[in-house]
């Protein structure tokens, strides 16, 4: 096994076993905080000496969560509730619950009243995040969240702690961006399945550890000789794209992921926070700078479609695959504009239904096989 393969195997093991990671942290005397999507400033958790753990659901169907949600709610949120109700999250010392979509709003209330043993830290981000009043609101919101975290941690986070946290996270974000680029250049070394595991594992690891492993991997990839890729390349877009069963179909059809616009992946590490000045304000400014996301208000009205077109062109992809999260209105609402922009740019696009409940990707397999042919033509 090469060094690259052995590192990828380590990432995969961690990505597949968040519960084992949580057990490990707790057994080491650490406290862990669950973080709902989207845009939770994990730096606040890190600065209080606790470990943030991403909560993006897990494959499967809700059973206990049906007591809280009708069937037409996104599986990510339902499966988070399912895990909490099943005791999988019992070892968490708290959960930060966001409210940026219409499912997360009531889900926050369900979590607060339904999960008595895990304190919920509530987080309502502003949509008018760019003007000064929006930055001020975010700063106050983050300060409140920090205070609640400090109570759980039993210690205060100093300005120095916060600055250090920002530095650690910036370094991790930079390493992830670099990895996305290198994985796009070396699909012969990093499969779609492996790529996903590398990125997903960071939600279940302490960032310095993830960064160290990732830098090692990036170094090896950077040194690897350029190889001709006989397959095709795409940009993926959606909330999640982390099911190995689906990603294996990409690999089997030699469809590499050149770049992504996935919430769990690149959308979460596009922007760094300033390492200068008031650290909480720096994090508020970082959120203000977030753009091109279906769950965020776009004051310029249409920046996301051209961003994705550019992503396809710059990354050398031949097409785009939209992983449409079932029952996700923000993604569904922005799909026609994205389609139109891709069509105008003559970029082939494939839309695949995606959620945690899908176990049989048979339909996706047929579509991806056909799409690979379309992309091959485009490559010629």
């Amino acid at each position, binding site marked *: 096994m090469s060094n690259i393969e052995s590192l990828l195997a380590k990432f995969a093991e961690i990505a597949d076993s968040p519960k084992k990671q949580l057990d490990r942290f707790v057994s080491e005397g650490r406290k862990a905080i669950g973080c709902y999507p989207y845009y939770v400033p994990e730096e606040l958790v890190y600065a209080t000496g606790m470990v943030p753990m991403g909560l993006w659901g897990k494959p499967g169907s809700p059973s206990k969560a049906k007591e809280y949600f009708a069937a037409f709610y996104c599986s990510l949120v339902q499966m988070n509730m399912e895990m909490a109700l099943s005791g999988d999250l019992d070892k968490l010392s708290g959960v930060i619950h966001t409210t940026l979509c*219409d499912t997360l709003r009531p889900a926050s209330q369900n979590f607060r009243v339904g999960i008595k043993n895990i304190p919920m830290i509530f987080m309502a981000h502003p949509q*008018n995040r760019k*003007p000064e009043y929006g930055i*001020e609101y975010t700063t106050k919101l983050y300060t409140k969240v920090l205070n609640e975290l400090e109570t759980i941690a039993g210690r205060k986070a100093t300005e120095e702690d916060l600055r250090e946290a920002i530095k650690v996270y910036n370094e991790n974000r930079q390493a992830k961006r670099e990895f996305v680029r290198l994985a796009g250049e070396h699909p012969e070394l990093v499969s779609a399945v492996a790529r996903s595991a590398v990125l997903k594992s960071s939600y279940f690891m302490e960032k310095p550890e993830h960064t160290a492993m990732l830098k090692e991997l990036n170094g090896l990839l950077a040194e690897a000789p350029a190889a001709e890729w006989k397959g095709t390349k795409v940009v993926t877009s959606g909330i999640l794209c982390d099911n190995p069963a689906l990603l294996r179909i990409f690999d089997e059809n030699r469809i590499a992921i050149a770049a992504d616009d996935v919430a769990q992946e690149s959308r979460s590490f596009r922007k760094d926070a300033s390492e200068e000045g008031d650290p909480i304000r720096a994090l508020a400014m970082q959120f203000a700078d977030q753009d091109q996301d279906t769950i965020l*208000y776009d004051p310029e009205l249409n920046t996301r479609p051209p961003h994705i077109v550019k992503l396809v062109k710059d990354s050398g992809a031949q097409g785009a695959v939209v992983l*449409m999260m079932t029952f996700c209105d*923000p993604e*569904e*609402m922005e799909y026609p*504009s994205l389609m139109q922009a891709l069509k105008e740019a003559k970029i082939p696009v494939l839309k695949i239904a995606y959620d945690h409940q899908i176990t049989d990707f048979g339909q996706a397999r047929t579509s991806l096989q056909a799409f690979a042919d379309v992309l091959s033509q485009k490559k010629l």
Partner: protein
Amino acid sequence: MAETEKDVSMPTEKVPAKNLLRDVVDKVYAEAWEAKKRGEPIGWSSSKFPAEIAETLGLKVCYPENQAAAISAKHGGQRMCEYAESMGYDNDICGYARISLAYAAGAGGDERPMPQPDFMLCCNNICNCMTKWYENIARMHNIPLIMIDIPYNNTPEVNEENVAYIRAQFEEAIKQLEKISGRKFDEKKFEEVCANANRTARAWLKACSYCQHEPSPLSGFDLFNHMADVVTARCRKESAEAFEALAEEYEQSVKDGTSTWRYPENHRIMFEGIPCWPELQNLFRPLKEKGINTTAVVYAPAFGFVYNNMDEMMRAYCKAPNSVCLETGVQWREDICRENKVDGVLVHYNRSCKPWSGYMPEMERRFRKDLGVGVVGFDGDQADPRNFSNAQYITRVEGLYEIMESKKMGGPKSE
């Protein structure tokens, strides 16, 4: 003067309040069309955007939610939804949004036509879906969007940082709309408009409160029709007057022992959620057959924005059904259930409204425990008839009836 003299000298028959209310809404749309013809900019506004701002500046505004409800009630919902789906919008998206997007794209909508927009007024206190819906239309027409973001609340109180954030957005919205209207914001006019809005809200709440009487002088379904005024014209004096007239009629009905509910009032229920507009007849039928009057709807407190100053106004706009915490939502409903003496709750699991239906299972449990009433849910949609099953609805109403009958006879308290 001649006209006044004529009015005084000629005894006229009192115009029924429902006609006055209908005329106010018709006037809102007629004035928007006239303004459009004159070349004035027309706004499309979400139902809980602070209407006071545009009204003060004399801007004519139409309400897509009201339009979508009207189109749906006249059975145009499915046609419009399918048009939006042909544009690529998923059938999972809110039916109002799909109808509105289709109309904005030129799909027609003769059931309730309104002029195409020149600016958009979006306030997401009602839902986040509104944000992308309005962005899509602003994008489609290349027009400005004025966004007031109301962060979701986790506590019954609205905290100071939220008020400060919202206030700053109001100020920015005023500046943006001054530019669009070409007029200066007149504080005196604003006070007058706010006074009208408060008067309308109080009159609306008063009219709704007549459901408390036993028997009720009205069928609660009437309120679904009358709420168009509180959505589209709450800042107008005529709306306040029309609601006051409605309250007077109810007062008289109580005295006369009459009611717009013409069936036995065997049971009284709260209808939870937005009605299935395309299915009003189907919703009503089993209720009237079993003598179940709807004497409570959540819309009463939802649109009763009453405030005394600017800070209270900010807080009032934080109190939309989908922006308040679970406890406030439960309290609103349980208060009206108690005041309006209901013995059952019929919950609409509305495919078009994720934020509303998202905590209904928990609310159902609380209604049963706190109120000891029968609670039954059914699946439906506010605008898309494809998401409603009449057979399921009838069965559920029958189930609710049996629970209520059993409780009435002193049967088991739990379901």
